[in-house]
């Protein structure tokens, strides 16, 4: 099964765009059908939109803030889960 998995992945990767190629679909400004691609947009507009030089921060907390909200909630979930699993009562 692991071999099957490996074969599948290798098959997929040799058809992938080469690593670091700036013309890969992910890095281009427009995709095949002419829609803008998010990565290039972020690079070009992050500072303009939020006056923050760190693009990752802007994406994290603004463009894709719901992802981050979800992430915070994941951590919160983990906390509540551990409580639920290991603690006897919530408050002593």
């Amino acid at each position, binding site marked *: 099964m692991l071999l099957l998995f490996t074969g599948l992945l290798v098959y997929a990767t040799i058809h992938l765009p080469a690593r670091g190629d*700036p013309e890969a679909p*992910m890095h281009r400004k427009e995709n095949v059908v002419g829609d803008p691609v998010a990565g290039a947009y972020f690079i070009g507009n992050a500072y303009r939109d939020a006056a923050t030089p760190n693009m*990752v921060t802007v994406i994290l907390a603004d463009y894709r803030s719901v992802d981050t909200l979800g992430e915070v909630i994941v*951590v919160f979930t983990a906390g509540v889960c551990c409580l639920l699993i290991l603690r006897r009562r919530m408050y002593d």
Partner: protein
Amino acid sequence: MIEFLHSYYAYWAIILLLVIGLYGMLVKTNLMKKVIGMIIFQNAIILLFVAAAFKWDATVPVLDPAYPSEDPVNYLNPLPHTLMLTAIVVGVAIVGVAFALLIAIYRNYGTLEEPVLMERMRSE
């Protein structure tokens, strides 16, 4: 050929890591080892994303006046980086819950070896 290897060897290393991680999760009988396998597996996927965000001759995605931001070629793609931040934290959360479960299992059965555990569960 060298070109090809150069472009793709990272992917294959990642696949190797993925397989190692999957092997750890599925084949190892110690539950703690399964968690280690899980960590490897998740990190390998994160690495795949980060590798995908990589561009030759580009700088880190923090705005630098020396590089014009209009041309995306100058900066690494920040999107996968952001997503992987999330993925890392998600991974930590899962590992935390997994450890909590392991502790609960150990309290209940006194072992983390799957065969022993199965035997003790069956004998109840």
